[in-house]
């Protein structure tokens, strides 16, 4: 089945078959990452601009490496040195980048919906690298890629997402991806950060960690995002940790072969204890590596590449 999308804006808009196409394409690129020379010519001659208007380290570097492994030229945009700090609008900034002959923009922005907005005003593909508390599609794709690597088919698998759900774009994208792939998703955390509204997205909402973790195949932890919270949503980090932090005891409540995930950056000792983060059950660093392959797949497909072409050996 050919790939038709020009942009990758959300997981919500993807059909299950499209998610499968991206994951299959990523699997091919993942094999490339194990080679001595981790580079393919797929996007040679293309220029990709990472327009990161919100601080980011791992996602920006991951996209940059993905572009470079595809042989694209890549320019990463530093928000603090950009014209946006002089009052230039997102439209003008992006249109100038397009006029400079960029072939694709990877956008990270603090405002939800901004990639959709940009996709309407530009003629080149836009890839969402995280928009506000809305979506972070490539993170969800790398998460389900990693889960499938470890667990196989996700149908009926119990995935618990624990932490600051309200302000998490990762949670939203993962909810969409996991429910489309047939997983059984429970979100858990304090009621102020895990409101009942999420039930409308097809997940179970729980504030009881013990019940939620029982029989989980995956525990995905999320960072407490103080920077997005206008007012305090819980009394203190100490109380959060005492109620919802994943420690050795609580980690024993999940299945023995369950995996522990985290999109990073980790607050050690807050949402997760170090002995769990560094345990064999943790796949946190595999997520990071897989992120490159997934982003290679997304850049490749949005640039016009087709899944079946990459599935033939890329030399």
């Amino acid at each position, binding site marked *: 089945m050919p790939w038709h999308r020009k942009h990758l804006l959300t997981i*919500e808009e993807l059909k299950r078959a499209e998610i499968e196409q991206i994951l299959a394409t990523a699997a091919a690129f993942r094999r490339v990452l194990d080679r001595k020379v981790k580079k393919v010519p797929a996007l040679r001659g293309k220029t990709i601009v990472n327009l990161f208007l919100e601080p980011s380290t791992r996602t920006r570097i991951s996209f940059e490496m993905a572009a470079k492994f595809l042989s694209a030229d890549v320019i990463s945009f530093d928000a603090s040195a950009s014209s946006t700090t002089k009052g230039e*609008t*997102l*439209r003008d900034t992006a249109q100038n980048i397009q006029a400079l002959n960029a072939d694709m923009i990877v956008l990270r*922005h*603090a*405002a*939800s*919906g*901004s990639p*959709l*907005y940009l996709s309407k005003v530009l003629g080149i593909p836009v890839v969402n690298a995280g*928009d*506000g*508390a*809305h*979506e972070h599609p490539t993170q969800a794709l790398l998460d389900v890629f990693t889960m499938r690597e470890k667990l196989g088919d996700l149908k009926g698998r119990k995935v618990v997402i624990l932490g600051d759900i*309200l302000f998490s*774009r990762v949670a*939203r994208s993962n909810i969409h991806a996991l429910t489309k792939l047939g997983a059984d998703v429970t979100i858990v955390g304090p009621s102020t950060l895990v*409101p009942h*509204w*999420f039930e*409308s*997205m097809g997940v179970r909402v729980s504030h009881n960690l013990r019940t939620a973790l029982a029989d989980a195949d995956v525990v995905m932890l999320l960072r407490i995002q103080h920077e997005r919270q*206008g*007012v305090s949503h819980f009394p203190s980090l100490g109380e959060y940790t005492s109620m919802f932090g994943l420690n050795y005891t609580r980690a024993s409540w999940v299945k023995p072969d369950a995996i522990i995930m985290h999109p990073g950056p980790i607050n050690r000792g807050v949402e997760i204890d170090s002995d769990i983060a560094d345990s064999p059950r943790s796949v946190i660093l595999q997520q990071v590596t897989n992120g490159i392959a997934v982003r290679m797949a997304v850049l490749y497909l949005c640039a016009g590449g087709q899944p079946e072409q990459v599935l033939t050996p890329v030399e």
Partner: protein
Amino acid sequence: MPSLIIKNGRVIDPASKRDAKGDVFIADGKFVKTLTPAQKKQAKVIDAKGLVVCPGLVDIHVHFREPGQTHKETILTGSQAAAAGGFTTVVCMPNTSPVVDNAGTVALIKSVAAAAPVHVYPTGCITVGMKGQALAPHGSLQKAGVVALTDDGLCVQSNELMHRAVEYAKMFGLSILDHCQDESMTEKAVMNEGVVSTRLGLKGWPHAAEDIIVARNIILSRYTGAHIHMQHISSAHSVELMRQAKKDGINVTAEATPHHIAFTEDALATYDTHFKMNPPLRTETDRLAIIGGLRDGTLDCIGTDHAPHAPEEKDKEFDYAPNGIIGLETALPVCLDILVKKSKFQLSHVIDLMTRKAADILKLPAGTLTPGACADVCIFDPGEAWLYNTYGAFSKSINSPWDKQTLTGRVKTTIVSGQVVYQNGKMLV
């Protein structure tokens, strides 16, 4: 000024319980029972066959941006938009730049408004600078000519200050208009809090933040006897609070906007900033409750909250775009569609909500065709479908969710003080 005879129309004047085919006579800027033979001979005749003839519409909630933000709207362009929408009386909000917290600014607005094609009444601020800290000079503002007091988009947060404000303003016969919003619950909020905001990842504005202030104002009105008018009610619970308050005989009134009866939060699915407003569009339950409130008299009138913004201000990321839409030129067809066509209101009921009942809230001399009253008239074709295009319209701004939509119900003629100011798409003054 020649006398006018408006013939053959369906004349609807809820204030005088008139709804029948007939004629309307105007002489010397006022409605009269009939004209003398000499007047008839010289009178200009408007044939309103197939049209509705009603009092000029009244809107007690508009923003004309002058002084200070005339790139968005001026008193003149706003008034022209009003006339094109069938409005003959408008009350403009004081959140101009500078804000209307002194008699001098009132005088400036009145001097500019004197040349406007419709009656423009200014309001003054409740607090100095609309900062919610100290009372503005209500007495001086009243002497200068304001018809009400409001901090508009900046709801007075201090209960004690609001208590003193309503008590003090009552001495001058001034009503307080309040935008009901507990700001501590809505910091950085950009849409209704609920299922849609959760999905879109946008900060939610819970209806409880409106309900709390509506309840506060009802309590303060009961305690002081002062009149408080709740602007643009958006929540079902607020409607319920108002219903009980009216049953209890408390001196409160409330308005609904065309956009809150036409749309729900679902309209924000694509982050279109033309649906970003404050208070935000809420759920279908809320929308139906507002319509129910208009039906049973819990909500007193329609107010457009006409809020012009320049295109470049709305053309940005949703979080950063300003709240508000224009509405004067679309209010009548939208209300005809939502209330008459879809909600089975009597046409005269809707006209009542947009004329007499709106005028009565602030005791404005408008909203009726009764002989002796100022001859303000709206003549419209309730069945004419037309394409609304903001670029051909009269407002200086184009921030309307109805842009390029086909609307049904079109204003043909607007008469202010006996003078035809707008007719068949043209401004005549």
